[in-house]
């Protein structure tokens, strides 16, 4: 340890060609031996690019948001379906199987906020979608694909947390009831019990709006970033009460996105200071500061095999390979069906 530190790393490669700022990233496929992994990126100009990480070229471009920024991308485990959320107040469901790229279904959003939606999908046909609701502080839960509104989560009148800024639906292993974590405009993170429509716990993590968080359901610990100069690490105890464990000071203010790697070893933050920071997840020890971009980094994403992608306002997507994962560790985290037919698709 006493030896001089490793020189700062360089990106493994860089994807150019979105021709506008990158606001959403999502890895798709890429489990071992199952063909070529893909990277999906959503841009300010409303396009979704599908990149092959093998050829490092865009293999397809989806245009469905009328020139408005794409803020969120997510694939579903069953089939080859992609969800994309745009600032045109539309949430599209795309079918990507066998080279298709058509909008199958779409949901109208009723909130102009920046909140990204979240899905909870198992292996069943039906899945759950959480998205910002009609009222500025509401979250709406839909059952998909029937689009039936399950409920609307509205904070108590005196709480005034502001708009929801980021959402995460999850389900504890022991408990089948779905839970929703929501970061709010006043800097607090709240845990909702969706079926009872009540807040289990709420904790103020930041003094500025929560811009992004990620939650490790195995350790019941989460990390959130906000417009301020610190990361907050919080945990959830058995009584489903949230509490802040610690905060971590940063050099520059503003975190746009936080992601924990699927093997839960490291986490990455997208900074307004053009840098991606990598931390050790258990100890929160800073591991690296990735300096490549020349504008705000809007989003980061981890692939199942540990690859890190960062999308920035400078229209570039940088791909980094840090602390490679052991290959046997990554498998359980993706549905078995997901990667298989992607290879076929990629050929097409």
């Amino acid at each position, binding site marked *: 340890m006493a030896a001089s530190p*490793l020189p700062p790393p360089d990106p493994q490669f860089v994807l150019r060609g979105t021709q506008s700022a990158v606001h959403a990233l999502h890895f798709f496929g890429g489990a071992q031996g199952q063909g070529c992994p893909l990277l999906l990126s959503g841009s300010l100009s409303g396009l979704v690019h599908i990149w092959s990480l093998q050829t490092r070229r865009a293999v397809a471009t989806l245009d469905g948001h009328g020139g408005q920024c794409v803020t969120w991308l997510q694939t579903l485990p069953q089939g080859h379906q992609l969800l994309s959320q745009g600032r045109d107040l539309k949430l599209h469901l795309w079918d990507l199987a066998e080279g298709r790229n058509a909008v199958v279904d779409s949901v109208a959003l009723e909130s102009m906020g920046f909140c990204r939606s979240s899905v909870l999908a198992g292996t069943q046909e039906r899945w759950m979608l959480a998205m910002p609701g009609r009222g500025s502080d509401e979250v709406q839960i839909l059952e998909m694909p029937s689009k039936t509104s399950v409920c609307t989560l509205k904070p108590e009148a005196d709480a005034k947390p502001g708009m929801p800024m980021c959402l995460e639906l999850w389900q504890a292993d022991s408990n089948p009831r779905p839970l929703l974590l929501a970061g709010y405009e006043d800097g607090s993170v709240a845990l909702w019990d969706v079926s009872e429509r009540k807040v289990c716990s709420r904790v103020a993590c930041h003094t500025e709006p929560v811009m992004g968080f990620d939650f490790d359901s195995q350790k019941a610990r989460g990390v959130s970033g906000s417009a301020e100069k610190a990361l907050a690490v919080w945990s959830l105890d058995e009584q489903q009460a949230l509490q802040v464990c610690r905060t971590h000071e940063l*050099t520059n203010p503003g975190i746009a996105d936080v992601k924990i790697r699927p093997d839960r070893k490291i986490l990455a933050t997208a900074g307004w200071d053009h840098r991606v920071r990598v931390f050790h997840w*258990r*100890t929160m020890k800073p591991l*690296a500061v990735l300096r490549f971009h020349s504008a705000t980094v809007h989003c980061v994403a981890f692939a199942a095999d540990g690859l890190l992608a960062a999308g920035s306002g400078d229209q570039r997507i940088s791909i980094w390979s840090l602390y490679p994962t052991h290959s046997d560790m990554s498998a359980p985290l993706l549905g078995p069906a997901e990667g298989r037919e992607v290879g076929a698709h990629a050929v097409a």
Partner: protein
Amino acid sequence: MDPARSAVLLAVREALHNLSTSEDGGHILSTLGALKRYLQGAENPALPGEQEEFARMHFSAVLRCLVGRLSSGWLGLLPDGQLEDLWASFFLEGPADQAFLVLMESIEGAAGPSFHLMKVAQLLARFLNTGRMAAVMEGQCRPPAEPAFPLLQETLLTKVVGLPDHLGNRLQRENLEAFLPQNYFPLLGEEIMRALQAVVDSLRGGWDCSVSFLSRVLGKACVHGRQKEILGVLVPRLTALSEGSCLWQRVCWRLVESVPDRAMEALLTGLVEVAAGPEVLSRLLGNLVVKSRKARFVMTRKILFLQHRHSTPTLQSLLGYLAMDSQRRPLLVQVLRELLETWGSSSAVRHTPLPQQRYVSTALLICLVHLGEAELQDSRDELLASLMAGVKNRLDSSLPAVRRLGMIVAEVASARIHPEGPRLRFQYEEDELSRELLALAAPLPVADSPAEAEASPSVAPVAAETPAGSADGGVPQAQLEGSGSDLDSDDELVPYDMSGDQELKSGKAPAYVRDCVEALTSSEDWERWEAALRALEGLILRSPAAVREVSVELAKVLLHLEEKTSVVGFEGLRQRALVAVVVTDPAPVAEYLTSQFYAVNFSLRQRMDILDVLTLAAQELSRPGRLPKAPQCGSPSPGSQPSSTPAPAWRAVVEERIRNKTRRFSQGSARRGPDARPNEFNLVAGYFFFPLLRHFDRPLVTFDLLGEDQLVLGRLVHTLGALMYLAVNTTVAVAMGKALLEFVWTLRFHGDAYVRRGLLSAVSSVLLSVPAERLLADLPDELLEARSWLADVAEQDPDEDCRLLAVRALLLLEKLRHTLVPPAPP
């Protein structure tokens, strides 16, 4: 009575005759035995009346005779030292005061060390060891019986206290241990205690007693400077005894009260130092300060205002003593008032040495702790007025230490005197002094809690971090292999180099000096403004030619630059940029800056900035080997640290590789020394120096160097000294030295210590920079005058630094004389 008297007279006469003439041992023995009957406590005693008569009239004569006969032959008349024992018993068992006086008399009468003297001295030592000194003093505590008493007492007093001196004089190197002052005075203390015990016992028995002799002994011993020895014994014993007993307490008070006035100061200073805390002092002294004027003067004025050698605990016990009794508290208020006045008086601020100012401040804070709200309220207006005047005087001082003291005391005092008013809060850095003073200001019971509060958080994080630390570093290797747990291989994640992770700056830095000027003058974009300021110094050093076109304009912009946004390190950036401008184009810019120094619309801060910049630029210009280095380093100012970049390490590796692969045929030095170059300051020193001297005695509306802006004057003098020093080896040095000495001469009696320090260092730099021959040829009169002035300052200046600087300058003068006039052969 009469027959007894004559019988005793006859017997004594005969015995004396026998003693002085007889050489027969048996005869002497029987004579002495007969005489011994008259001593108290002898077997087969004489009548009490006869005993008394003997003791009163004849004992001294007998003793004198005995001492007179003493010789080795006489003692050898009887075997086994019988005669000596008997001889000694007269001294040890008879009336102690007479025995003591005779012994001292014979010792003083001796010419020099001899057998006789040694015997008497040994007897005196036995006398002391057997506790007879207590008997001497006890005797003086009883009511007087004879008219000649005072004279005898005076003699006794002198002998008792002066014993070590007398013995030392007589015995010279043969002196006995017991007579050394460090042994004798503790013994005397013990004996005083025993005498006091006897006094207390007889008071209990209902007899009259007086402790005045004991007081005089004590006072005299203290006047002799033996407070520590004698009080070191007395005070703890008295403290213990007076704790439970009113009688002892009264005896103590009486003992101190009857000390003569001239010894009061010595005794009280000793007592205050030795006593452990105000309670003890209060028990020993009672209300002495109220009763005795002398004691009051010593306690409330002399120790506080005229001395400053006492330690803080001493002060605490003294002021605590004043605070302990309702009769003494008015004194404490008065002390506080006087302390505040002294603390704030401008002449005291200027003329007392720093340790004394610190001492007064300490006393002031202790006073404030002891006084209650109500007492402070009573004289609040007066106290506030003198406090505010004092704060003003202190903040005006140009010595940082004086200002600091002012700030600390003002904060504490204003909070106590005027608790409901707005809190004063100064910005000073915390250091040992401030912590010490603030700790004094904390009320005593509360004083412990901050320490604990400080201690506990420092413990907590350690405890919290230990498990994490051990999990981090101490996971056994075997566990890492294969196990899929959380702890798995966490330690493999070695951090990358994160030194580049600095605060984000926008990349709008101008690339040309002219752009910088434009950005600094007209930009409303603060990021650009800050970037321009940061880039400026590097740009100036990189393109000197471009700078020369706009140098004066740039200097003007920089001089007037205000910190509009709170840029970190603004002062340093501006200063370095200004220095770079001056260095690049010295003559016009220095001319501009020096002219602005005496211009109207500048703040003192700006004027001092001008001085600093001129000094730094002169230093840079006069640095040998400047040119080759300047373009590379980019930061000429001392104190700016080169940023750590990985390049040097990389270069070292490459050079090492080259060295390993290169064969050298000779072992010559690989590197040349710095090139010899002319001092660049030579050409421009005049532009820096002379304009600054031009107008110092012409006050402006906003700027009066000889008046209240003495801080700037001090800086100016220091700057001139520095410029003079940097002008070493230049041709103008002689003219500069002459002008500077004249300047120093006009200001030599300035009241401000900071200015005087500057003057003294200026003289030193003249002596260092001007060549010795020229100094003697051109400035002989000035040197003579300076010399006598320096000698005066070295002896009399209240400021320690001034004295030191004056001595240094004198040494330089002396050295100069030796170089010019080699010491004449004897």
